[in-house]
């Protein structure tokens, strides 16, 4: 009897644990929203807000109906079961859905920052839904889910002796988000007047550092839920994950600030770069290694952003490809290096077992996005008209300015 009640309590605790993680991750989406609000022009702020909240809604529906079943099958949690059946068998599973939805919904939230200020609202939402419903869950299934290609007990583990290790989604979530964004940004083209006809770069100033910083802070705080609650249950919780997340974030801040010589945008995004990179191996690293991984991520972001927007002249507004794509990729590979015992890590990883899935993911994401955005471009169109862009998406699409009272 007492054993029973202990078991129930343990189950409840796991549900609570997942719940706290799910809510923390949900809160991060407010962070995505404000990071974008601050990083775009004032005429695109409402668009950022509406986009993030609405894509959360569409992601919920799509991931519930299609995505989650693709990734994990329909064994324990079908939505055609009645409520009492769901409660009887699927309590933990439902909460896990909520947590994992928070991951999945990052995909459109990441892309959003890249295509900001000029993408058509509805076709971009549609693209996001396709990714959350099909592309992301497919790779999720390969890594954490029901298709035994990269995860524990998979083909890769048989091949290399080690499964692909992506504890909290450097690759599955962030790298994928970034690499899905890249083709979108390329196909859309830069914002009006972002680059001159002669190729000169005319940077567009952001609207608000405080909102940008608010977004970054919300993301940083929620991220601890993202990483630590990735354990999936209280028993699996690891203090190391928390400390390593902290260290990598700190590394990203230091690098972002110092390399950019006090740039507020790079500093606050540097924190995120560190966190993106640490996800994969946060349960493996020695804290000092995590710090290093974060520092490198901060540097990757600063230089990456410069190269992307100034050298390659790709108008990735928030720098989501360097931030999530490159730092996520770096994080996936870093787990295979600094996760090794040689670097004071926990071991159980190999570089090759990281490299193969990382590269596969890049190919998959790039192709899928090129396809989806390509088709959408040819059919409905993916870009606001010149006139709409000039007016700004806030007025053109949402019929309101971000500070309506100020309008004369």
């Amino acid at each position, binding site marked *: 009897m007492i054993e029973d009640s202990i078991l129930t309590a343990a189950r409840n605790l796991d549900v609570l644990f997942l719940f706290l993680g799910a809510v923390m991750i949900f809160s991060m989406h407010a962070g995505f929203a404000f990071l974008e609000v601050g990083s775009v022009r004032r005429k695109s702020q409402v668009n950022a807000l509406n986009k993030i909240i609405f894509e959360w809604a569409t992601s919920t529906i799509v991931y519930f109906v299609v995505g989650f079943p693709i990734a994990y099958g329909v064994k324990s949690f079908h939505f055609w079961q009645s409520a009492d059946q769901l409660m009887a068998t699927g309590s933990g599973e439902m909460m896990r859905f909520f947590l994992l939805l928070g991951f999945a919904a990052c995909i459109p939230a990441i892309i959003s920052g890249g295509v900001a200020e000029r993408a058509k609202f509805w076709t971009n939402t549609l693209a996001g839904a396709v990714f959350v419903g099909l592309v992301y869950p497919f790779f999720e299934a390969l890594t954490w889910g029901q298709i035994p290609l990269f995860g524990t007990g998979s083909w890769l583990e048989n091949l290399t002796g080690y499964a692909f290790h992506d504890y909290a989604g450097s690759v599955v979530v962030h790298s994928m988000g970034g690499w899905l964004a890249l083709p979108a940004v390329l196909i859309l083209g830069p914002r009006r007047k972002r680059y001159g006809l002669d190729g000169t770069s005319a*940077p567009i100033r952001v609207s608000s550092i405080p909102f940008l910083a608010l977004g970054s802070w919300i993301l940083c705080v929620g991220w601890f839920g993202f990483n630590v609650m990735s354990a999936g249950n209280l028993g699996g919780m690891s203090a190391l994950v928390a400390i390593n997340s902290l260290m990598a974030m700190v590394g990203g801040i230091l690098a972002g600030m110092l390399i950019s010589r006090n740039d507020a945008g790079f500093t606050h995004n540097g924190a995120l770069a560190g966190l993106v990179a640490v996800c994969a191996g946060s349960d493996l690293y020695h804290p000092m290694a995590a710090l290093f991984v974060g520092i490198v991520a901060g540097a990757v972001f600063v230089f990456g952003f*410069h190269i992307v*927007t*100034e050298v390659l002249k790709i108008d990735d507004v928030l*720098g989501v490809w360097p931030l999530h794509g490159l730092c996520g990729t770096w994080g996936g590979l870093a787990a295979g290096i600094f996760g090794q015992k040689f670097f004071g890590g926990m071991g159980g990883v190999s570089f090759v077992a990281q490299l193969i899935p990382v590269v596969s993911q890049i190919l998959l994401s790039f192709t899928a996005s090129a396809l989806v955005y390509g088709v959408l471009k040819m059919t409905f169109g993916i870009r606001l008209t010149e006139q709409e862009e000039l007016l700004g998406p806030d007025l053109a699409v949402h019929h309101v300015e971000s500070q309506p009272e100020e309008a004369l």
Partner: protein
Amino acid sequence: MKMIEAIIQPDCLEPVKRELRKRDVSKMTVFHVKGCGKQMGYTESYRGQTHEVNLMQKVCIRVAVNDEFVRPVVDAIIEGARTGEIGDGKIFIQPLEECIRIRTGEEGSDAIG
């Protein structure tokens, strides 16, 4: 009638208002502007991209007056706004042909005060 316009340092608005009040001038219109003059600008950079910015925060005061008030108003502004440092600003005087009080429809010198 004249329209007197002064571009001054934001810090100096209070003293200028005080000096004007001393001279019984209490009507004015004020707004924020950015100005570029002898005063040096600065360099701005965000995410590694540099802008040269040479516009400093200033305040613009506009006072419409009858001719006999021009001197006192100019004096008041100079009194209140002069710090002796570069960036103190300028006063511009333009002709004003007509002034109408919306509330009563009064016109000319009567309407101005």
